[in-house]
């Protein structure tokens, strides 16, 4: 499916990516001037994924970012000054200096859930946001990003499995940026495509060139529409590259030089500039206007950030509890009468009615054949959800029938009382 973009939308995508890039560069300068408190996690090279995915959402939709999704936060309405003040630990930052980096959010206005440093944990949380949204009649989509490293965590799998069983409107973007700190993908997971994780949960998936902002947008829009239509969660694997170390202190000497060169030639912003020129969507004048405008914006943002004081020390012990400071109410989009489901509606539409009973022999034969076909699974630059689903042999978002793996013989274990426990 294709989702055409207007010229204005193209230029807006460019604006957010370029803003993301220049803000990143500004933060690096501030880090070198010792104005950043703690670590600095660069987004360099991943702007297309952050911006392209978030751009496919609507205002009512929810996101939960990672450290390298500043682009998504900008699309969701945060200002560069917010990000600067977070990194500079100032009082006027979104967390008033209680937390740093991208660890901030906004429940009511922008629908952003603040991340935590334990990666993968956002998957079950956003599943909850999605389920609640359905109950509240909001027709929202919840989206979160995880890296290749987070796909090894239990929370990732528990969250995805639960989302799948609930048919939750969750878009899970796996940013395969090749490195989890210093660990390459090959040492992180024993599979080539992280999108394959989706098969185990019977959900739709796609693989996208994460440095092509239009492709990222298209894949996400398709996933979002699918979720909104009630077809369950979607996993998008975005193949991209982290162009710096884990944080500023890490020179990333473990990354082969050739790998940097390969990805540098695929820089998302340079690529998009070329695309805009080739498609006559702008001219040199517009291009330089963007750079000048963003530079000015960032100068103003820095001014705001530097004028903000550090938080008063007594703030340290305040706000542990929220007693008396909030009225927490669900935002119902339907009448109260509809909210309490009638007694008969105890079964969801996707309640399992298939009680198993599959042909063991033929399943095993198919499994062996599939294993052979998948042996030389080469790189794919992009594939759509439909194609991915076709390969998974299903189309309605329902879990496929279980397949029995070829039996792996156990070694002869100890016998009697010492036997397998």
């Amino acid at each position, binding site marked *: 499916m294709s989702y055409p973009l207007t010229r204005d939308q193209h230029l807006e995508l460019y604006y957010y990516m370029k803003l993301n890039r220049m803000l990143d560069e500004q933060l690096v300068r501030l880090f070198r001037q010792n104005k950043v408190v703690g670590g600095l996690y660069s987004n360099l090279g991943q702007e297309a994924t952050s911006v392209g995915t978030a751009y496919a959402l609507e205002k009512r939709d929810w996101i939960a970012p990672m450290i390298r999704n500043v682009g998504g936060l900008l699309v969701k309405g945060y200002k560069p000054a917010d990000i600067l003040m977070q990194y500079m630990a100032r009082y006027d930052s979104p967390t008033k200096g209680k937390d740093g980096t991208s660890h901030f959010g906004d429940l009511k206005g922008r629908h952003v859930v603040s991340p935590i440093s334990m990666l993968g*944990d956002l998957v079950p*949380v956003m599943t909850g946001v999605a389920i609640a949204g359905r109950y509240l009649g909001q027709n929202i989509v919840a989206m979160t990003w995880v890296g290749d490293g987070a796909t090894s965590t239990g929370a990732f799998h*528990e969250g995805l499995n*639960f989302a799948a069983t609930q048919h939750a409107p969750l878009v899970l973007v796996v940013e395969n940026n090749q490195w989890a700190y210093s660990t390459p993908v090959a040492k992180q997971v024993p599979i080539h495509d992280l999108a394959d994780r989706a098969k185990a949960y019977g959900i739709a998936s796609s693989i996208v060139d994460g440095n092509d902002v239009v492709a990222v947008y298209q894949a996400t829009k398709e996933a979002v529409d699918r979720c909104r239509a009630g077809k369950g969660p979607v996993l998008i694997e975005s193949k991209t590259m982290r162009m710096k170390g884990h944080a500023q202190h890490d020179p990333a000497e473990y990354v082969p030089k050739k790998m940097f060169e390969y990805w540098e030639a695929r820089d998302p912003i340079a690529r998009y500039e070329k695309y805009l020129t080739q498609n006559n969507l702008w001219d040199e004048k517009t291009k330089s206007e963007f750079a000048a405008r963003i530079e000015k914006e960032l100068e103003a943002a820095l001014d705001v950030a530097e004028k903000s004081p550090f938080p008063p020390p007594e703030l340290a012990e305040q706000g542990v*509890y929220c*007693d008396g400071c909030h009225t927490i109410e669900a935002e119902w989009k339907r009448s109260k009468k509809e909210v309490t489901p009638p007694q008969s*509606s*105890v079964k969801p539409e996707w309640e399992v009615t298939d009680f198993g009973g599959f042909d063991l022999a033929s399943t095993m034969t198919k499994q062996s054949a599939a294993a052979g076909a998948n042996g030389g699974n080469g790189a794919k630059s992009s594939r759509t959800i439909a194609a991915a689903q076709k390969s998974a042999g299903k189309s309605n978002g329902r879990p496929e029938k279980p397949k029995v793996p070829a039996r792996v013989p156990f070694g002869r274990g100890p016998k009697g009382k010492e036997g397998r426990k």
Partner: protein
Amino acid sequence: MAPVTMLEAIRQAIFEEMERDPAVVAIGEDIGVYGGAFKVTAGLLERFGWERVIDTPISETAIIGAAVGMSYQGLRPIAELQFIDFIACCFNQITNFVAKSHYRWGAPVPMVMRGPSGGGVHGGPFHSANPEMYFVHTPGLKVIYPSTAYDAKGLLKSAIRDNNPVLFLEHKFLYRRIKEELPEDDYTVPIGKAIVRREGRDLTIVTYAAMMHSSLEAAETLAREGVDVEVIDLRTLLPLDKETILQSVKKTNKLLIVHEDTRTGGIAGEIAAVACEGAFEDLDGPVLRVTAKDSPVPFSPPLEERFLPNVNDILSAARELAAY
């Protein structure tokens, strides 16, 4: 009104709160069709439907994580952990996501995590734990551990209406063993307030949950021996009602702390410190502790009986302290 068990009191609290507020939802393993491993959630699915009574995979991290997400939407999830021992599986979600949420970025988490706790039923090392202190040491949570049916219902209602994350521990030994007549009208019990279960002059016992009943029993025996014991039921462990403890210590001048949790790092140590800091000059004797042994909860009856504190343990500690 006929007397009801603590289990029924808890069930009533959930049912009534779901009736009262459509934002209250229940989530957990086997809580729907089956009605929960202990039947606390029996009848909820039929009344409130699958959107509000959510059966989950066996996936504690998913249960707590999803409840957090739901609370961000303004819902008030009650997350059941089938046995409280399994809370270890979602320790990260609770200590890092739930407890720190409001402090870090101002996002309240109005959710309740509840589950059957405690020993005495020969459940073994994975079905008998008292995990309160992992969470009492976690700023941002509230930890409740009631000892009566009345309190269980009233405190659970308060917990559900609270804008903060609350860990609500239910002693499974008490589930069906104690019965109480409950008011017909809606009522709540305030979080963070201890209660004096028995007034006395000579010695204070601070306790909670199942040990509250053992302590009261010991106090009756001691009364016949001429020792007038005051028994304080904490009800809420976090925040701790220091005021009530100190007031009592200042009156009786002697403090014994009794809990079923293991000794090292148990809340008795914290309460002893509170007494030393706030009433040192009023103390006429050492602060003593009666607790479980420092081991996992054993399975076999003679082992578990040895492990758990009992009325005799309380009596001998109280006699020793009274004679000091």
